[in-house]
């Protein structure tokens, strides 16, 4: 299906740029893909793991894998050798394609550069029928524990209709801000293929470099996590803002906070802001375009696209026609009631809005009172000088847990002043159980896949 999408793109609009920053047209991309498919098949393994930085080669390998009916899994490029080894042991062996010298005992390791060097091999037929072939295994971010591995059929990921292709002015240039090991990164590639648009792959994950890439490559659409957007907005120089011509901002992967949505609206008044709700297990469920936090409570009363939503005991449940086949790492399936799947996201209905309160596993229990870290973080992020915040439970002999927080400050912020302001704001806006009892200023909060790593010290 993904192979057919590129074929369709190449046939209908061969000269359009599929990738801008090399550049690669749709036709060139498809031709390379046909050769790469043959190389991948020659690895003689039904499953291929990729441990490589995001690149056009990696994108084409994923598309090509479907033509020859392979299962693929992109590993986080920041994994250490021991982590790769552990994943391979847990998920099962397969060929490992890498872009750096790497030795893993008992694994067949191949260099990406050799796999994509296709001059010696015959391409697969460009009429190859791959409609229901292949699968992709996506590892959960693992920000709250050991990553799980969710296997999806490509065809089912594409079960949602793409937008009707529009005229030239409605074509977008998308930055691949999510890495390809992330579900949302794959969604960006699928979206570009489905709508015959253009992809830009940043050469670095440094926010300053990403901003320069957006300007230089004429990117007008970016999909990223709230953490990504918060850090990026903090790094935009005053001389750069006018040169960032964003018209589509997509936020997903973590719950957004009201302060972020306001900041995005004020920095990019011409951009449409879409919040996407997706999970690794269920895929993309729904999106919200009104720029407000959470989603309309009316979504609980009627089907939204392919899904239905309901709240059970403060947790969001989804009934969806599109979901993963199974975990392939032996994890038990997500909790479900009949055909409703638990998302693990806690929510509150406030008037006509449903607001996200954080992950169920992150709830802090302070003397029997439940505290949602997201609410604490929202308060902390309103304090001037705070660039990023993480609230978590710290084990405590008196109350079981207390709320602790780590703060990353903006570069020009004064620590003493921020500490005083944080204390004042928390006293005024949070109840006593919610107030952080320990505040640490850290150089940089740990992130994985542009999401805050949420494991607390409790």
């Amino acid at each position, binding site marked *: 299906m993904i192979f057919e999408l590129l074929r369709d793109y190449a046939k209908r609009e061969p000269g359009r740029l599929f990738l801008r920053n090399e550049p690669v047209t749709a036709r060139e991309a498809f031709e390379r893909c046909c050769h790469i498919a043959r190389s991948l098949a020659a690895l003689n393994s039904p499953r291929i793991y990729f441990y490589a930085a995001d690149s056009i080669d990696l994108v084409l390998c994923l598309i090509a894998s479907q033509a020859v009916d392979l299962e693929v899994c992109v590993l986080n490029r920041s994994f250490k050798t021991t982590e790769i080894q552990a994943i391979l042991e847990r998920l099962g062996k397969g060929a490992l394609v890498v872009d750096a010298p790497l030795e893993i005992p008992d694994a067949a390791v191949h260099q990406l550069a050799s796999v994509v060097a296709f001059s010696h091999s015959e391409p697969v037929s460009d009429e190859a029928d791959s409609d229901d072939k292949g699968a992709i295994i996506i590892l959960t971010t693992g920000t709250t524990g050991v990553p799980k591995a969710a296997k999806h059929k490509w065809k089912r990921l594409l079960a949602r209709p793409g937008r009707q292709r529009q005229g030239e002015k409605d074509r977008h240039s998308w930055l691949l801000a999510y890495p390809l090991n992330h579900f949302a990164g794959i969604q960006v590639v699928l979206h570009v293929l489905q709508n015959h648009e253009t992809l830009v792959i940043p050469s670095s994950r440094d926010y300053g470099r990403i901003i320069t890439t957006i300007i230089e490559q004429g990117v007008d659409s970016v999909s990223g996590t709230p953490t990504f957007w918060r850090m990026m907005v903090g790094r935009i120089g005053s001389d750069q803002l006018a040169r960032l011509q964003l018209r589509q901002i997509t936020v997903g992967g973590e719950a957004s906070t009201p302060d972020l949505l306001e900041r995005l609206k004020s920095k990019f008044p011409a951009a449409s802001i879409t919040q996407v709700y997706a999970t690794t297990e269920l895929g993309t469920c729904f999106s919200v375009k009104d720029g407000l936090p959470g989603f309309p409570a009316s979504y609980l009363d009627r089907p939204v696209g392919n899904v239905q939503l309901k709240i059970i005991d403060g947790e969001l449940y989804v009934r969806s026609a599109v979901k993963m086949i199974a975990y392939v790492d032996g994890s038990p399936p997500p909790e479900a009631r009949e055909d409703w799947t638990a998302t693990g996201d806690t929510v509150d209905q406030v008037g006509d809005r449903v607001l996200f309160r954080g992950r169920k596993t992150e709830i802090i229990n302070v*003397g029997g009172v439940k505290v949602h870290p997201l609410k604490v973080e929202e308060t902390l992020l309103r304090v001037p000088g705070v660039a990023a915040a993480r609230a978590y439970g710290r084990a405590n*002999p008196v109350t079981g847990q207390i709320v602790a927080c780590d703060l990353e400050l903006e570069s020009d912020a004064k620590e003493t002043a921020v500490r005083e302001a944080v204390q004042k704001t928390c006293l005024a806006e949070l109840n006593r159980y919610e107030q952080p009892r320990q505040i640490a200023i850290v150089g940089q909060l740990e992130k994985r896949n542009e999401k805050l790593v949420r494991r607390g010290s409790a």
Partner: protein
Amino acid sequence: MSGALSQKITELIVRLLQAKGVEKAVVNPGDFLYEGGLGLDSLDAATLAAMLENEFKSDPYNSGEFPQTVAEIVSFYSRSSNSGPAN
């Protein structure tokens, strides 16, 4: 050493009370910590336990004790041979 220890603990409790909004906090070694004395409730005691642990790497609450007065906290650290202030 005991004087310095007592002073450090007193300072921590003053800081805790100030964070609660008590402007002119005065703390003496003989003061009762909870209601009827300095007025700490369970959340304050939890906070104090965390502050003491940060400062001294251990705290009486985590060691199964529930100190009633400032002096009992000082005594906990005095009894422990290697429990001097961390800095």
